[in-house]
């Protein structure tokens, strides 16, 4: 019966019904486009922010007397690929291993003791246990470092930092003495940091040169992380099993660091907070902004439904008065409005979803140059959300309808 009432009532005031459906349609279209875009863009922003550098530093753990004895500790070369076996392996977008040693360079009668670092610039390693490769090297953790010339490919050539290059007035192609051996300069590196005062050699070549086969002294990791919340700052040692599970399975920079630490034997991995913090903050703000926009749009839709219904009440006063006179309880009157709200919401949600598929696709390609992945899962969510928004719009009209006094309306006279 209720469905008949609502259906016939809508058919009787098509314009108002269309207006309300349109209001919900546009609201949900905008809100769900925003959400689709923000899901995609959130990931991209995160990736782009990764340009600010690595967010996890892995170093050998120094414990007890080892430090005092002055004996250096190293990480194992073979553990590098194991970083790609952790739970959050897909979030690891860059890994760069380093072997840090010293050397004296001499050129044109000048000499200086500098850091001689073994690393890779960019290469791909085979994925452990899977087909395919993953990128490693300085480029993957510090993409803004610029290399002119080529990276060192043997113990015969090196890359030098840009400020050394200008100080010693050398350029790619020249030779420079390193610990008394003349080596060819294959390229110069400009990082804007202390690296400009270091010299670099291919990792394996340096290991052989220094008799440090299979050893590395630190690893920088660049990982996509979830924003840190209060839960993330808790000490995992104090967590219950369930909490620890949750912490471990959320992509916090701390939990990813912990997982990396577990795969590097004898290591200590810690977040580099500056980078990790900025990224989480920016993403959080972006999310807040999107939520606010969605909320405002949906509030506008609610208001649209609400005002249209209240305006319609002027004409419907008589029928509501009549229903009350026939003994309709407030719940049955309210049910009529709620059912109208649900029908409007479902229709508006469906149209809104279809519209948002088009809109977000257009915005995605035009503004961001990417094809957005459409999630069919969003359809029921959009429709349910739209129904809620629309039902919220019926609250005020229901209140108004309750105030209708049948006696005044049904008096024989008018």
């Amino acid at each position, binding site marked *: *019966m209720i469905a008949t009432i609502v259906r016939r009532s809508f058919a*009787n005031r098509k314009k108002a019904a269309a207006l309300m459906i349109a209001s919900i349609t546009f609201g949900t279209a905008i809100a769900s486009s925003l959400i689709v875009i923000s899901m995609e863009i959130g990931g991209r922003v995160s990736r782009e922010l990764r340009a600010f550098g690595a967010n996890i530093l892995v170093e050998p753990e120094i414990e007890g007397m080892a430090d005092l004895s002055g004996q250096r500790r190293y990480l194992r070369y073979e553990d590098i690929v194991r970083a790609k076996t952790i739970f959050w392996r897909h979030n690891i977008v860059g890994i760069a291993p380093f072997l840090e040693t010293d050397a004296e360079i001499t050129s044109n009668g000048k000499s200086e003791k500098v850091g001689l670092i073994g690393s890779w610039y960019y290469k791909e390693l085979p994925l452990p246990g899977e087909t395919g490769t993953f990128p490693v090297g300085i480029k993957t953790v510090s993409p803004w470092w610029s290399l002119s010339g080529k990276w060192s490919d043997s113990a015969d050539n090196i890359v030098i930092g840009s400020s050394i290059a200008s100080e010693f007035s050398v350029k790619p192609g020249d030779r420079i003495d390193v610990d008394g051996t003349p080596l060819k300069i294959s390229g110069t590196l400009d990082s804007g940091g202390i690296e400009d005062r270091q010299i670099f050699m291919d990792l394996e070549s340096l290991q052989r040169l220094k008799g440090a086969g299979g050893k590395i002294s630190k690893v920088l990791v660049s990982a996509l992380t979830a924003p840190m919340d209060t839960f993330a700052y808790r000490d995992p040692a104090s967590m219950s099993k369930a909490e620890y599970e949750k912490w471990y399975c959320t992509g916090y920079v701390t939990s990813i660091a912990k997982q990396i630490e577990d795969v590097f034997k004898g290591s200590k991995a810690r977040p580099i907070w500056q980078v990790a913090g900025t990224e989480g903050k920016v993403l959080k703000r972006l999310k807040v902004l999107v939520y606010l926009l969605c909320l405002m749009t949906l509030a506008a839709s609610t208001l649209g439904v609400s005002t249209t219904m209240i305006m319609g009440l002027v004409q419907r006063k008589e029928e509501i008065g009549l229903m009350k*006179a026939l003994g309709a309880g*407030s719940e049955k009157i309210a049910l009529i409005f709620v059912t109208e709200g649900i029908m409007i919401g479902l229709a508006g949600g469906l149209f809104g979803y279809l519209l948002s598929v088009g809109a977000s696709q257009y915005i995605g390609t035009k503004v961001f140059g990417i094809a957005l992945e459409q999630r069919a899962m969003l359809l029921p969510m959009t429709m349910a959300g739209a129904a809620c928004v629309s039902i919220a719009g019926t609250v005020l009209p229901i209140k108004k309808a309750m105030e209708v006094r049948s006696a005044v309306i049904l008096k*024989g006279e008018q």
Partner: protein
Amino acid sequence: MGSADEFIKLRCVSKEYATASALRGIDMVVEKGQWVSVVGPSGSGKSTLLNIMSGLDNPTSGQVVIDSTDITAMKEDEMARFRREKIGFVFQQSHLIPYLNAVENVMLAQYFHSIADEREAADSLERVGMGHRIDHKPSQLSGGEQQRICIARALINSPQILLADEPTGNLDRENTRKILELLNRLYSERQFTIILVTHDPFVAQWGRRTITMEDGKIIRDEYR
């Protein structure tokens, strides 16, 4: 069950509007199964009296007791329940929902009462001679036909009381007679209580008792 001879009882009921006194201390008792006609000049308070008896309107003072229940003390939702259980209404203008057809208008009263039953609703239309018009909208029906649908609707939930406010006000003599014959037939079948407001002496004579109002008061109460 209240006592049959004090089925509806009004005690000193008054209704004041800001600009007028519609009822001034009405005392009256209606027995179960009575057919009472209420007559009087325009503005004498007849509709107000009916609205107060049905709980659609509240008296300014006084008490209305129906079937031993004081309805003046009821909250709005209790009143709505009481109304749908006990009272059927026929208004002067045939108030029907314009976008529902004849049978749906009757079903609406069933729905508010309990559950809609299309068969039963169609049967009731058959009984008021409207069986051939069940899927017509009110705008496609004559005044007399609309009023018959209102009668079917008023009686569909088998109320104990039928309140009718000038049910034939808009009809010609021929249609008025048909409606009253119909009412009379249903009345003798079911023995509900009828309170019927009219200013037409022809209509008033169908009841066994006639109450005459003037200026918010009962000035005459006669049996035939």
